């Protein structure tokens, strides 16, 4: 569709509020040959139980239905893996369902769990995601990932998904980057930032202390994208427990209100047709009238430069949660930085910056925990977990990991969950001597974006401290 009805643009109205009470993660790695998937899943569940001072056997008693995010059956060579995990978690005879939406699988799993609570079907649910991407060599992994493109029209063209993002990077660089070397450096800065933050995260698979030059000199994967512009291929699990209000306060003293929405767009980037830009609450109707004059070629929306699915997910989520300006109303974000270019595109889709101006979010220092230009706190820190580039992309777990990381900040427990030397040791990792506390001070609200394909599915998850709820807006 290229025009939307008022029914389609209705802001979701849930039957009752939903809360996230805890979350947990396993170690993330390129390969974890010493563990079966269920061991990683139980590691995540154990951490979620520990986080609220409960034993797994006691937390299990509250769970009424289960939502399992696992994207790629062919990677693990196990159909109905959800049933294997459900059995190993000892959660029979509860109803459970598998969710698959490519890279957005983790976010979509939260979306389904959220609706189960909001509808009243369940009072407490498990949202668990995982991925097992180490059971084939990397080139076969790239082929498997490329199978998520159209198998007749796209996959045979090199069997390499990075290529589909590279054409967007090329177009964006031409139109909005104006072919400036400085834009390419800004993209590289994102990779430096996220891999640097990953150094402070014991769960993270890809911590690196690198420079912009290192990124620009890394091997070309699909020009203009280089190896260090790209996300990781990972193994691991993450889970969250969602509840209604009464159950949430039985399980902990400080549950976070959660809102989850979803959008979609064509599987093939080829099929994107021109349309008017759906506006977010911090935008006005005339804002983009001269976009094509300021950025020749930029008037084709979403073209190859925007993600309609992200825009629609934010369109619903901001109004549900009462977010007017994400820069003012949010305290941190975890974005789906599958590639540095898609990170910049997303800044615009979710209204952190207007279309065409995404680069300024990085160049201003706003996206940092501590603004490197001023030494003061960044205005809206992004991907302190390390993101997909530095922490992991264990696909089914990714969107859940993001939500947990946002939650740690709002709960004020980021330092506790990332500094524990015993955890670093358990994961076989060395805590850096310059380990830094990246807790975002006084965080009240945060956003996680989970994204699939070249934008086929995107979810927006907003977490809110219950003392800092905002009034929803339907306009």
């Amino acid at each position: 569709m290229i025009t939307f009805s008022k029914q389609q643009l209705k802001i979701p109205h849930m039957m009752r509020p939903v809360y996230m009470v805890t979350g947990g993660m396993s170690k993330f790695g390129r390969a974890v040959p010493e563990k079966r998937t269920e061991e990683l899943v139980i590691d995540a569940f154990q951490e979620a139980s520990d986080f609220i001072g409960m034993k797994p056997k006691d937390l299990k008693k509250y769970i009424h239905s289960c939502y399992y995010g696992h994207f790629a059956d062919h990677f693990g060579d196990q159909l109905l893996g959800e049933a294997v995990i459900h059995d190993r978690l000892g959660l029979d005879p509860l109803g459970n369902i598998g969710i698959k939406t490519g890279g957005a699988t983790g976010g979509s799993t939260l979306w389904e769990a959220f609706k189960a609570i909001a509808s009243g079907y369940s009072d407490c649910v498990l949202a668990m995601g995982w991925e097992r991407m180490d059971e084939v060599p990397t080139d076969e992994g790239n082929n498997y990932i490329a199978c998520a493109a159209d198998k007749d029209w796209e996959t045979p063209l090199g069997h390499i998904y990075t290529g589909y993002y590279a054409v967007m990077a090329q177009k964006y660089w031409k139109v909005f980057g104006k072919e400036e070397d400085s834009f390419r450096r800004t993209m590289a800065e994102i990779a430096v930032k996220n891999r640097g933050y990953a150094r402070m995260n014991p769960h993270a698979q890809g911590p690196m202390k690198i420079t912009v030059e290192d990124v620009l000199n890394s091997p070309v994967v699909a020009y203009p994208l280089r190896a260090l512009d790209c996300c990781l291929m990972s193994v691991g699990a993450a889970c969250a427990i969602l509840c209604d209000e009464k159950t949430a306060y039985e399980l902990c003293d400080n549950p976070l209100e959660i809102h989850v929405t979803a959008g979609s767009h064509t599987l093939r980037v080829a099929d994107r047709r021109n349309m008017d830009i759906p506006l977010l609450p911090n935008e006005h109707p005339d804002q983009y009238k001269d976009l094509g004059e300021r950025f020749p070629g930029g008037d084709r929306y979403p073209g190859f430069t925007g993600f309609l699915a992200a825009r629609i997910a934010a369109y619903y989520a901001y109004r549900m949660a009462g977010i007017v300006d994400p820069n003012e109303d949010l305290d941190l974000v975890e974005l789906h930085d599958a590639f540095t270019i898609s990170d910049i595109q997303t800044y615009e889709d979710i209204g952190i910056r207007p279309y065409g101006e995404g680069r300024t979010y990085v160049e201003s220092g706003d996206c940092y925990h501590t603004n490197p230009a001023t030494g003061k706190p960044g205005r809206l820190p992004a991907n302190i977990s390390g993101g997909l580039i530095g922490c992991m992309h264990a696909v089914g777990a990714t969107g859940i990991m993001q939500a947990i990381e946002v939650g740690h900040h709002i709960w004020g427990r980021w330092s506790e969950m990332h500094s524990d030397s015993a955890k670093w040791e358990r994961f076989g990792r060395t805590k850096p001597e310059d380990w830094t506390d990246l807790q975002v001070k006084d965080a009240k609200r945060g956003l996680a974006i989970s994204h699939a394909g070249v934008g086929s599915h995107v979810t927006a998850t907003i977490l809110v401290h219950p003392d800092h709820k905002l009034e929803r807006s339907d306009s």
Partner: protein
Amino acid sequence: MSCGERGTVRVENGKYRIKGHFHTIYANTPIYNEDGKLLGVTNPRDIIHIHSYGGEAPFFESLKDSKLLATRCDNEDCEHPGTIYIPFRIHCADCLQKTTVIDLTDLARKTARIHSFMVTERTGAFNTLPIPIRFINVEFDGVDTILMGILNCGEPEIGDRVVPIFRTVDPSFTILDLAWVPEGTPESDLPEGFSF
């Protein structure tokens, strides 16, 4: 492990008729760590899948005849009648009525240009294209979508004019039977088996 004729398929009376071998199994091998401890096993096998093009079959069949087919919504009751789709869509994305197949070859020869591109030397397993691969996204006058393809010679630039070429000798009946070259490329520069 199987031997004998590699599997082929035809359709008779609406049913698949298969002939030959469609799967090959091999002995697995153990996976040990450096201490000689067993961690797992390999699980090798070959499988031939069967795939129907359904209503898109005319597109893939016409490539061998040097024809580029697209589809158009001719439903006057559609919100956006006249939308032209390539990739070929069997049903209009707006009204879900069956589209009309149209021949886009001449329009492609006259108006195709590069919307975006990328160059890669890395591929996934099962790639059959020579590297580096030059993906291009091709836009056409009056067409609502942007087709992805391969530039077979020359270096891509956004806005450059390109023309389609077709594998007319030993076609694969896949999207790999279609490629693009810069406008003005002589026939002698085309890859083996391709023509304009």
